[in-house]
């Protein structure tokens, strides 16, 4: 199952934030990581550049088609189109019901108000107008440098330093906030669409002959159980073999017919035991939790 990409469960816990609904249930949102947000932004940038190129091509064809007569209309459309794309692509998409641009959707992210209230239009506008100094200003510095427009090295270095501060700002605060997020009171959470597959605990298929002693079942806690669940759901043959060998070595169990069947049986037995403990108010976090 897809956890937050590339994060160990404990780091994931560090990225969780409380959001208590009016009904009193904590939804436990997970913040987007810096790399997820980078991916989303790159995708959006590519989309914008492609649209810009298409717009320019259409404008050029329009000029040829009208023999230069439609110059005015073409120029106006292009200028306005560029302006709207630059300033309103993010704003309009994040105002929609999904509160995410195309890039964010693909990366499974959405924008949320930090106080748990509704995301207002002014917050979306504020967070995106700040892109002006976070992205476009450094870009224009680079542009000047590339064009050799008589901007000296010091200015360029200052520009790059400026860009660096904003670019890496999300990496240096606990909540992964961009300057725009800071100003608008928003944050970006990881909210991919999940689907619900089968329950691993079918209770019939696999318990096939394996009996585990109390001691063997006390070897692990919830963390190990859920790691095992992930291995079983992924269904990767090699990792199942590796896990099965580790467990069998620990318990001194010899060869088994099928690693998968063995792991399934152990999963069911362990989960049953731990869930029963839960009912009695005992939550055993991991194998070190006595």
């Amino acid at each position: 199952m897809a956890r937050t990409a590339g994060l160990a469960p404990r780091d994931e816990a560090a990225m969780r934030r409380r959001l208590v609904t009016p009904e009193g249930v904590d939804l436990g949102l997970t913040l987007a990581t810096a790399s997820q947000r980078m991916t989303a932004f790159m995708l959006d940038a590519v989309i914008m550049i492609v649209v810009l190129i298409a717009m320019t091509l259409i404008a050029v064809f329009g000029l040829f088609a009208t023999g230069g007569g439609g110059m005015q209309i073409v120029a106006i459309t292009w200028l306005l189109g560029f302006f709207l794309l630059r300033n309103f692509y993010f704003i309009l998409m994040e105002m929609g019901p999904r509160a995410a641009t195309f890039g964010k959707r693909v990366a499974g992210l959405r924008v949320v108000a930090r106080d748990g209230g509704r995301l207002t239009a002014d917050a979306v506008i504020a967070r995106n107008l700040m892109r002006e100094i976070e992205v476009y200003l450094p870009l224009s510095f680079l542009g000047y440098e590339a064009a050799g427009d008589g901007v000296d090295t010091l200015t360029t270095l200052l520009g790059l330093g400026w860009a660096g501060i904003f670019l890496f700002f999300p990496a240096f605060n606990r909540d992964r906030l961009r300057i725009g997020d800071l100003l608008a009171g928003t944050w970006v959470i990881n909210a991919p669409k999940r689907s619900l597959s089968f329950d691993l605990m079918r209770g019939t298929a696999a318990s096939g002959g394996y009996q585990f002693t109390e001691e063997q079942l006390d070897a692990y806690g919830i963390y190990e159980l859920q790691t095992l669940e992930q291995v079983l759901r992924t269904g990767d043959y090699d990792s199942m073999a590796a896990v099965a060998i580790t467990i069998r070595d620990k318990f001194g169990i010899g060869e088994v017919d099928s690693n998968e069947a063995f792991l399934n049986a152990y999963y069911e037995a362990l989960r049953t035991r731990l869930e029963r403990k839960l009912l009695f108010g005992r939550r055993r976090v991991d194998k070190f939790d006595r």
Partner: protein
Amino acid sequence: MNAPSSFRGLRAEREEEWRRLDALVSLCEKKSPRALSDDDLMALPILYRSALSSLSVARETSLDLELVTYLEHLCARAYFFLYGVRTSPGARLRQFFANDWPAAVRGLGRETLIALALLLVGTIAGYLLVSSQPEYFSAFVPGELANGRDFSASRETLLNSLYSGKEQDGLAVFATYLFTHNAQVAIFCFALGFAFGIPTALLLAYTGAMLGAFLALYGGHGLGLQLGGWLIIHGSTELFAIVLAGAGGLRIGWSVVFPGAASRLAAASVAGRGAATAMVGVVLMLIAAGLLEGFGRQLIVDDAVRYAIGLTMMLLWLVYFYAPRRRRNG
């Protein structure tokens, strides 16, 4: 082994409901709430609460990680959908023009005065400096903007520059270009406010200095009145917009430096959201200024008419923003 049946039952009992909620929320996200039938609309909040209680039960009794994560995400999606108040775009727009925009501008009152003062100080400084020492002109006005209008130019050249429009064909393009350029500068002015408002203040004073330099140049040739007409027809709108953008930037800078009782973060985000609403208005004002500059100024060459239009626009903006209005109930 004999598993307690309650948690295996949770999934069996409720899965149907979760899947229905999932489908309804997906439909709303993809299309709009109007795509739902009346029955579905009525069922949505009930399904949402039921899913929330399933989540609580699952967290306490089940160790099925996939189930808990699925329910968390489903509940979050439904929550954001149900607790986001959606008005129709038309109602939203009416609300913006009737209420939000003028209120946001009024909320920036103190900063607007400061921004205006900065602009005026810049103008006066620019005027005095350039009047006494014309060499300063090139320091305030970059070459491409001056475009031949400097102290080496004759009175006739300067006079011509006030009344000869660009070639009439390109007016609309010119207006569009001016608008996009000015809007970008204004947004910039707003965004830079974050650096404690210092760059915004400098930008305002510099714009003033440029203005002052032109006043000194034309005034020196006895063309002050004519320059005034040339400027005011669009300037009353454009400079007002720039002052408002500057005010937005200053408000943000101010709240970062002096957050008051709130935390620095909270103060900045309140200021940022208020100023952002005003900024959308600023962009609209710049569209009007671009039209006035592109068409009005090039087509109308009579000084009196230019002054009349410019001052009328000024008055309209002032009345729209600051005229007392009845409080709406609720």
